[in-house]
């Protein structure tokens, strides 16, 4: 795919040789194919973009290594390859505003590059201790049921502040929290009711008001309460508490989605960005002889199977297909949701031997071909099965 795009860009460079601006743009497009995937965090002011980007960005994992996170790039800035869109509430007005913009038919058809995040999930339900669970349920329901959530690869509830606080929890903070947790619960309860009560001079113990204030500013009232509860129920050192806070924040789920949908498809998404920029250039500054290039771009767009795979993964996971249970699991795996290497797609060990992979691939192909041709199934379901068949064929094609 990258090679095809490179060829297209080279052909375009010939066409625009005499135009320095266009040449610079095409040059940049080509360079970007070598660079890490750019993921933009966008959303209304104070929806928690920076906090979330920071929480994700400091994550030293292999999964997100090839990623550049852009905190709310302006429209004039560089074009992101993928987008994490933050909303504070799953309200129709906000969701309508969160929808990715249109663009060319190819841009729309391949618009499988955004994830919706219900940020500040800890605010759901007036900060009750089960706020995060409720938020996750709301997000899942919205993804499955709300037509405004159709275009997204995922709708994920994340408590950005908690995630960031958890990720960067310091020893002194843990010690403070542990000291508070040691106070009998009944006694402490009214002091952790609100920010005011937590920072009240009447708070028991010698901890200065400013220290308490900085704690509540870092973690939020919900975070403080949750941390105290977690310490009481067994998270008795900083590392454990940190891990548990992060786990509950929903950051892990977001990271997995970014890894599976963005990082694993980095080549396709970067190619997409380049093609969309090339399309825009060809449309804005038509040149004699550009027609042939335009039709080559169209052919490329029509053949790009990666985007169909991504869209189908999103549809299956969002519950928008008739597939469920094991067939759905197998389908998303074959489509590459857990990695695009043949072994990943077939659910085999990474070091499986080629013969084994080939047999498993052939088996999957036969079964899904059968599914794709069953006349008793609805058209949409057969179309979905066809996409899986195409993925399996592509997998086997590596052996020829």
């Amino acid at each position, binding site marked *: 795919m990258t090679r095809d795009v490179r060829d297209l860009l080279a052909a375009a460079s010939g066409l625009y040789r005499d135009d320095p601006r266009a040449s610079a743009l095409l040059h940049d497009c080509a360079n970007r194919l070598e660079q890490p995937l750019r993921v933009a965090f966008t959303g209304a002011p104070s929806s928690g973009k920076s906090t979330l980007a920071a929480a994700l960005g400091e994550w030293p994992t292999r999964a997100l290594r090839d990623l550049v996170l852009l905190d709310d790039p302006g429209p004039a800035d560089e074009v992101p390859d993928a987008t994490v869109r933050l909303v504070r509430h799953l309200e129709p007005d906000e969701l309508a505003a969160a929808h990715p913009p249109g663009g060319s038919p190819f841009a729309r058809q391949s618009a499988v590059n955004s994830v919706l995040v219900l940020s500040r999930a800890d605010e759901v339900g007036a900060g009750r201790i089960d706020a995060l669970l409720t938020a996750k349920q709301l997000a899942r329901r919205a993804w499955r049921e709300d037509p405004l959530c159709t275009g997204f690869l995922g709708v994920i509830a994340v408590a950005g502040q908690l995630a960031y606080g958890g990720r960067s929890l310091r020893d002194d903070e843990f010690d403070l929290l542990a000291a508070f947790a040691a106070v009998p619960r009944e006694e402490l309860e009214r002091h952790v*009711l609100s*920010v005011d009560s937590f*920072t009240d001079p009447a708070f028991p113990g010698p901890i200065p008001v400013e220290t308490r204030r900085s704690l509540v500013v870092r973690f939020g009232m919900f975070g403080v309460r949750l941390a105290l509860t977690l310490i009481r129920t067994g998270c008795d050192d900083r590392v454990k508490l940190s891990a548990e806070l992060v786990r509950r924040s929903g950051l892990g789920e977001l990271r997995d989605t970014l890894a599976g949908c963005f990082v694993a498809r980095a080549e396709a998404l970067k190619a997409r960005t380049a093609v969309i920029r090339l399309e825009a250039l060809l449309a804005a500054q038509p040149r004699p002889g550009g027609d042939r290039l335009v039709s080559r771009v169209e052919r490329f767009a029509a053949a790009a199977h990666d985007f169909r795979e991504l869209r189908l993964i999103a549809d299956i996971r969002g519950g928008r297909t008739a597939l469920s249970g094991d067939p759905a699991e197998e389908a998303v795996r074959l489509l590459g949701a857990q990695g695009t290497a043949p072994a990943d797609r077939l659910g085999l060990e990474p070091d499986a031997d080629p013969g084994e992979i080939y047999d498993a691939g052939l088996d999957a192909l036969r079964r899904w071909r059968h599914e794709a041709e069953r006349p008793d199934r609805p058209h949409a379901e057969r179309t979905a099965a066809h996409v899986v068949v195409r993925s399996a064929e592509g997998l086997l094609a590596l052996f020829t």
Partner: protein
Amino acid sequence: MTAPAWLEVLNETMDACRTHGRADLAERLRRRRDAPTGQIRLGVLGFPKQGKGYLLNAVLNAPVCAVGDAPTPAVPTEIAYSAEPAATLVGRSRERIPVAVERLTGELGARPAGTLSRVEVGVPRELLSAGLVLVDTPPVGDPRSPRTAAALDLLAEADAVILVSDATSPLTAAELALARHVRTWCPHVLVALTKIDASPGWRAVAERNRAMLAEAGIDAPVQPVSAVVRQAAAKAGDADLNARSGFPELLNWIAEQASRPPEQSRALLAAVGVRAAAAELVESLRDRAEAAGQDAGLGQAALLQRAQRRADDLRRQNTKWQNLLSDEITDLLSDAEYDLRERTRKIVNTIDRTFDEGDPAKVWDDFAPWLDNALAEAVDVNYTWLADRAEWIAQAVAACFGAQYDRALPDLRLDGSGVEGLDDVRRPKIEKFKVGQQAFTGLRGSYGGVLMFGLVTSLAGLPLINPVSIGAGAAFAAKTIKDEGGMRLQRRQAVAKQAAQRHVDDVFLRFSKECRDSIRLVQRRLRDHFTGLAEELADELTHERETILAGTAERERRTVHIRREIDRLAGLHQRAGELGTIAGRQQRRELSA
């Protein structure tokens, strides 16, 4: 008891609202007028997820409103006093369906959207016992959504409004606009700043909100509250904690609303309603006047200017085409006569040459048909040329009218005029030559035919001296007469010459008269045609200008009417303001046209 003063102003404003197509405003005023006495309605309004439900539940110390995860119902919930908890769903056609309070949320979820108009809940609360009704509204959002409309519908009957905005961020532009709108329609508004338990920066947010409201001229206090703290205080029975929740102040404010003297309250509400309606109406009237003005301003001026330009063009065209026509006709007259004279002169030359040497008695038989042909040809060519020139003149004049000339040229065929007048062309009196009769009959027929049938195009374009005439001259000259000489021959030659010349003269005279007449006819026809056209264009222009002017007058009349209406509404606005002052409240600035 006499009708209160506010009623008259209110009714008059309602009429104005109806007259100007704002039935919605009229309906709002009507509901204000007919609001049941003995009830104080306190509305709670806000954008989604600001904590409205929590606030109401905390006010009532009871889980009456749906909170949190479930989306709030799309219809208002009215909470009033009743000895036992009770809930009623009120349908679109006012049917009442009692449901158990604890099953209310489920029942609401089970109803299809749009079948309910409101929910009524009764709770045994001291706070409500004096007739206070709390109204929970659907969240405000997209201005076009029915949910927003249902929420703002509250303003028709609300005595006071609590606006709910949470402390996680200062008032947004949309919230500020909502506050302004609410304050316009309702004299008593409070902004409840919720979720202060979870927001470390709530004090700064409260200050910011107060400053923004003051800057926008919205007279509404900001009350920070925490439903969570209130709930905990209620559970623990902790009065100190309750004081920290901000709810005691909020409840005081609510109680204040409930304890106002009803008649005074009604007058104030009516006055505020009238002022709000008058202001909204004036705004839409101003928009309309402005739109009409703009329409008139730009478009009108441009149209008039264009019409003026076209009139000027037309005047210039008229002078131009008239001059052109008269010049061309004068030229044509002299050219045609000269041409004919030239042609006949050449024929006369040949006659002279022929009879200087030839004997008329011998050559006459050949000479007569030649003369016949030569004259016919001269007349023909001259005539063709004349018709062509006439056609050309018509086109040149038409060109003066430019692109506006989009019709056929006039019919310039000169059919048969004056043919009868040629009958008495005198024939040559040389009877002894015995030729004249047939020759001249043929000649007459020939050019009469030309006149009769217009252009004989096959002859058009022949040169004046053609081989026929040269050949004829040579042939006649060769027939010299040797035998006869002296006086007799010379006399015969002179007579023949004279006769032929006179005939040519006669034909020339007759035909040149014919030509002049034809040319004059062409002139008249062209003049009539183009005068008609110019008049038509002028008429069109006049009509167009009248239409434009009439439009301006109509618009001016309408603008004056709108201005008068605005003045009238400003009067109502002011009277309502006076009522408001009487009702114990200072009003803000007045409207003006």
